[in-house]
């Protein structure tokens, strides 16, 4: 009885102890959950990486999550340089190059136009501007499949069917809707008085855009670049529809490679090929992911 009373009075006298304990427990719980979730997310990637570094013998005998006993890069070398894809046996490297030839111009052009469009929509009023912006927003929601046939027709008319420039055009057209929206939403958060000051200072369209806006737009430039780069790099549908043979992107080649292998499935090669195809987007996220987050926040929080 007296003991209980003591404990109670102690709790009343120093309520901080109870509070601190529950706070520490809460933190362990949160970290615990994060670790479990991270493990679930990482498991497939780790499994892929380990499998790609094993020999087929080891794969057959072991656990898919076990660390390779004898590290070997044979699978990587094979799929990169000499694996047979369809009828040619030059590995993924040519297609990997194709993907870059598609991604780099498609990203730069769509981000450039998106920035210009966003500037115009954010700061210039003209007849029908709201309708036009609405249409562009609508463009973000058009399912890819719908445009396949008309787009194929258009590419045919332009004599770009089956070529890399054709694929670049398709991705630019599709990407501009998103990049325009990103830039416009970023630019409308910039105080109007800055544009007025620039007008009084005698700065024209390009001076305002290049000297005043672009230097403070890097967060949204990063967002747009990452968005476009990963979107275009990971694209399969447009690649498989509009690119022919040697101009195909790496995603399509990966599919063909996995389907070409005859006899027993070479899991280590499939995994190595998939890793190679995914590597650029992984690198971009690791290198610039924090800019992506910051850029997405920049539009929402003023200042």
């Amino acid at each position: 009885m007296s003991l209980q009373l003591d404990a109670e009075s102690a709790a009343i006298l120093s309520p901080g102890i109870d509070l601190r304990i529950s706070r520490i427990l809460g933190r362990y719980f949160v970290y615990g959950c994060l670790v479990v979730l991270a493990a679930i997310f990482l498991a497939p990637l780790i499994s892929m990486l380990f499998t790609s570094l094993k020999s087929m013998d080891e794969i057959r005998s072991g656990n898919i999550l076990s660390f390779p006993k004898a590290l070997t890069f044979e699978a990587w070398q094979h799929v990169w340089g000499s694996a047979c894809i369809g009828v040619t046996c030059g590995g993924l490297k040519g297609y990997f190059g194709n993907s870059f030839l598609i991604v780099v111009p498609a990203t730069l052009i769509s981000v450039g136009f998106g920035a210009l469009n966003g500037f115009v929509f954010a700061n210039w009023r003209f007849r029908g501007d709201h309708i036009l912006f609405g249409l562009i927003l609508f463009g973000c929601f058009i399912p890819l499949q719908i445009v396949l046939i008309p787009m194929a027709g258009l590419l045919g008319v332009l004599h770009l069917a089956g070529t890399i420039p054709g694929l670049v055009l398709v991705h630019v057209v599709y990407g501009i809707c998103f990049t325009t929206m990103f830039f416009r939403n970023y630019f409308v958060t910039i105080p109007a008085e800055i544009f007025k000051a620039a007008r009084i200072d005698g700065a024209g369209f390009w001076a305002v855009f290049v000297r005043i806006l672009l230097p403070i737009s890097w967060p949204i430039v990063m967002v747009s670049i990452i968005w476009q780069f990963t979107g275009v790099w990971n694209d399969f549908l447009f690649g498989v529809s509009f690119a022919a043979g040697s101009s195909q992107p790496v995603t399509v080649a990966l599919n063909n490679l996995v389907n070409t292998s005859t006899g027993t499935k070479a899991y280590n090669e499939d995994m190595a090929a998939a890793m190679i195809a995914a590597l650029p987007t992984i690198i971009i996220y690791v290198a610039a992911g924090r800019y992506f987050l910051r850029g997405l926040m920049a539009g929402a929080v003023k200042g």
Partner: protein
Amino acid sequence: MKMANLAINHINKSFGNLTVLKDIDIAIEDGEFLVLVGPSGCGKSTLLSIIAGLDDHTSGSITIDGKSVQGLEPKERDIAMVFQSYALYPAMTVEQNIGFSLEMSKMPKPERLERVGKVADLLQIRHLLKRRPGQLSGGQRQRVAMGRALVREPKIFLFDEPLSNLDAKLRVEMRTEIKKLHQRLGATIVYVTHDQIEAMTMATRIAVMKDGILQQFGTPEDIYDRPANVFVATFMGSPPMNLLPAVIVDGSQGLSIQGADAMLPVPFSAVTRAPQGKKVLLGIRPEWLSLASTSTYQPTLDLYVEVVEPTGPDIFVALRLGEREIMGRLPTGSRTRVGEKARFAVDLSKAVLFDAETGIAI
């Protein structure tokens, strides 16, 4: 520095159905300091934007130096503007910010840097020239914004509430500094504020606005001592002018104050214009009341002292006359005690009469 006279001729402005400026008509001479003052949303910034050429007006015209500026871009109007948010270019250094307009007009770099340096010295910000706006305090940004205007050596400076983002102490300092700058450069300035103290202390001319209508245009003395209507009387001055409802009696010689058993003579200035029986408002500024000496020749009122608020240089006293409350402002050291009734002299040579129905000065 070049000088300009500015005329705002019957300007009207609507946004769709919303009329924000109604027939604004103001003209100032070279070197004047015009303050546009009024409550938020009365159209001050809109008027300033129209002068600058950033906004179109619906009708009327603006002339600078006798020439219409209709259709001219802001940069062609020979004006410079300082904004409330300063609107500095975030990615440029202070030097680039100040020099930007000169760069846009293709001034050669050596000449440009010299002009920027001169302005920086004038504003004492030379040591900040290589910094970016993000690395400056509010007061420093304010100076840079002024530098950006000064460097153009324009005919007219336009200021839109340039001090309202500063803390109180800095605001008073910058007020003095802008006034000094005006005297030194002899520049023509149009200055927008909602702060009546800024208006009184800085202006050579004040335009008081409300709901897009010009209420009164005149010198600070005009506005303060001879307000054109009840709005101006109460908006300008702190504490505001006391307004006592009264009726003209005694063949236009006397005022019977309503809600109190008190009489005062009609102010001399209004005697011939206020017929007997007319309902009026008697306007008395707090400092036009004083403790009456026994030998005073001024009319007096016996007032009950309710609250005494010493402010340092002055004492504000809340007084009561029957149902009416009156604010008084006495010099420090005046002998007043809460709860006592005291005799106050009223300076009727200054008092103003307003028509009780229209609110317009008689």
